[in-house]
């Protein structure tokens, strides 16, 4: 069944050939995951797509098993999670894998997004690929938020209250929307029920969008650290075994860090308040989301007006949908963008500052810091990016990937 670039595969196994003639799944796998020509110059940032996929599968598998033992009832939920931890065989393992897995799924996806930003992976002809990625991020955030509500701890309850209340900022129909979301006049049992149903549903929608993301990726192939298109076979290697093995190595390293947290510090990334059962009569001193939502929470709180805050928070993510058209530079990779390269790092620091502000109560110097960082975030995308693309003089691009790789070897 060997085949080189382009030629349709021939299957020696009669059963495989019979099936493939009627449903070409083997040809498809051969074409898309074996011979698929992939730029030969990926660095380790290109592992994070595979890592994120592994985390998604891991979250779905652990999540389904958890769901078979969980009670989505406001009176039972907290104790049922503890019952999973104490009485279900290896339940503690499933629960901590799922809980820590959410953090590491986001970490992988954020690094994946950074890779896209730095190497210009969102530019033509990969705009739809990028936009589907933004949709995945939004779905992940919704899923993570609803999943966090399920243990029915204090932070679950009050997080749900704060976030659902955001919709009350919508003029005229806001209050009705919030009542509709809650299924009542406060966060309660109906809210928990529907969040559980949606938390079970959305991951499969994520799988669907990931499939589209991969289909779109395989139309024009992956971007690469040089941001130039492969010009021929000398610039590419077959996806398997070159990148399957490299991804395998990257996945192992990532899983080591993930396992270290899961087994030795499973609660380090969580909030202690979520080990206190939800109590509608006692508000925690501070209501904060998990770390991966903190930058957006900081943007929400930085704006003195509620509706404005909600618009800016959602806008900060929706903005990414139009990123391919905000960036006016024709050069993809920051390797050849001497000025913009540094502003990508400034943006990363800006988002970290936002995250830091989001973790603290909005008082003292956190308020001006969060406002400044929010302003800079929008300045980066709306002003800096379009203007810099026009005035920056990119470095000369190498003539081909192979050329650049060989030149570096010679040095």
């Amino acid at each position, binding site marked *: 069944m060997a085949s080189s670039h382009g030629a349709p595969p021939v299957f020696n196994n009669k059963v495989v050939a019979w099936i493939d003639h009627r449903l070409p799944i083997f040809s498809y796998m051969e074409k898309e995951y074996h011979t698929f020509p992939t730029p030969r110059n990926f660095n380790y940032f290109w592992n994070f797509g595979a890592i994120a996929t592994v985390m998604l599968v891991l979250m779905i598998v652990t999540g389904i098993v958890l769901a078979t033992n969980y009670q989505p009832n406001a009176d039972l939920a907290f104790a049922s999670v503890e019952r999973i931890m104490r009485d279900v065989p290896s339940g503690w393992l499933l629960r*901590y894998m799922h809980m820590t897995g959410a953090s590491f799924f986001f970490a992988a996806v954020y690094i994946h997004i950074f890779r896209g930003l730095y190497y210009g992976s969102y530019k033509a002809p990969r705009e739809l690929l990028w936009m589907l990625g933004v949709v995945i991020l939004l779905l992940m955030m919704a899923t993570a938020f609803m999943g966090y509500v399920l243990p029915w701890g204090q932070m679950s309850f009050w997080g749900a209250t704060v976030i659902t209340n955001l919709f009350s900022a919508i003029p005229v129909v806001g209050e009705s929307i919030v009542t509709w979301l809650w299924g009542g006049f406060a966060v309660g049992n109906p809210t928990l029920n529907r969040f559980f149903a949606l938390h079970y549903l959305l991951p499969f929608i994520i799988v669907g969008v990931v499939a589209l993301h991969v289909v779109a990726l395989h139309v024009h192939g992956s971007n690469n*650290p040089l941001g130039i298109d492969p010009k021929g076979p000398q610039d590419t290697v077959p996806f398997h075994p070159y990148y399957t*093995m490299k991804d395998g190595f990257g996945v192992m390293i990532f899983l080591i860090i993930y396992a270290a947290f899961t087994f*030795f510090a499973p609660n*380090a*990334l969580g*909030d*202690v308040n979520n080990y206190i059962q939800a109590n509608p009569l006692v508000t925690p001193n501070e209501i904060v989301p998990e770390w991966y939502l903190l930058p957006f929470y900081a943007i929400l709180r930085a704006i003195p007006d509620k509706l404005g805050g909600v618009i800016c928070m959602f806008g900060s993510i929706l903005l990414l949908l139009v990123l391919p058209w905000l960036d006016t530079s024709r050069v993809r990779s920051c390797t050849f963008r001497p000025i913009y390269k540094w502003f990508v790092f400034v943006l990363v620091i800006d988002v970290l500052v936002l995250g830091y502000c989001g973790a*603290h109560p909005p008082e003292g110097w956190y308020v001006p810091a969060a406002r400044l960082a929010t302003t800079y975030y929008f300045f980066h995308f709306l002003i800096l990016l379009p203007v810099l693309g026009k005035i920056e003089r990119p470095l000369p691009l190498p003539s081909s990937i192979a050329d650049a790789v060989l030149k570096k070897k010679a040095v």
Partner: protein
Amino acid sequence: MSIKFSLNKLIPAVAVALAAFSAGTIATAAEDMPPLPKHDWGFKGPFGTYDRAAAQRGFQIYKEVCSACHSLELLSYRDLEGLGLTANQVKGIAAEFQVSDIGDDGSAIERPARPSDHFKKPFPNELAAAAANGGKAPPDLSVIVKAREGGPDYVYGILTGYVPYDKLTPEQIKEFNVKKDDNFNLHFPGHRIAMPQPLEDGKVTYVDGTKNTLQQEASDVVEFLSWASEPHLEARNRTGVRVILFLLAMAGLMYAVKRAVWADAH
């Protein structure tokens, strides 16, 4: 100075950033509080285990002192076997408690607890607990060590952090508005705590002859409550060490395979 440059610098940068992130979320709200007493807990770290003898003494304290007000409702009596008690000892402990049940004829009965029963609560419900304790129910202790910033150090700090009214400085009395009947605790947020000092030198008599100082009692009960919060910690640590060793070996193997596959492509 092109591709490698960014990669080599970025990965540590991202790691540092993530660490700063998590530190940011953990280290909150500790202003103008004295630092928690540092105690060398044997269950900390990847190879940590519980001190069975200390945890058993801690259970004695829970049973004789804490359980008058605090429930431990997520635990069953059979869980005590995890502390090294035999099935018969557990049966005996459970049988000391009378629990409500429904008899074969459908009438309400009281029967001795069985090992499969959850720990008996000191009050029938939260309202009764609140009514008997000045308006606020004492918290359940099942996961208390995981539910407080500082964990075991915090609980130990509370138990050993009481200062009698006549030992307080006039500034403390003024700043925290302490009255003669208030309980002042160094480590409680706001310092005025509803719970009167629960432990003191000689509060319990240990059967194993351990000296019953306040520090000893507090440390023992924290060992017990830490076990109660995380009864599978030892299995978790053991599994973790094996999983990481496996992943390290697997990563080494994958790296070798990757090198071999790429040897002709470079």
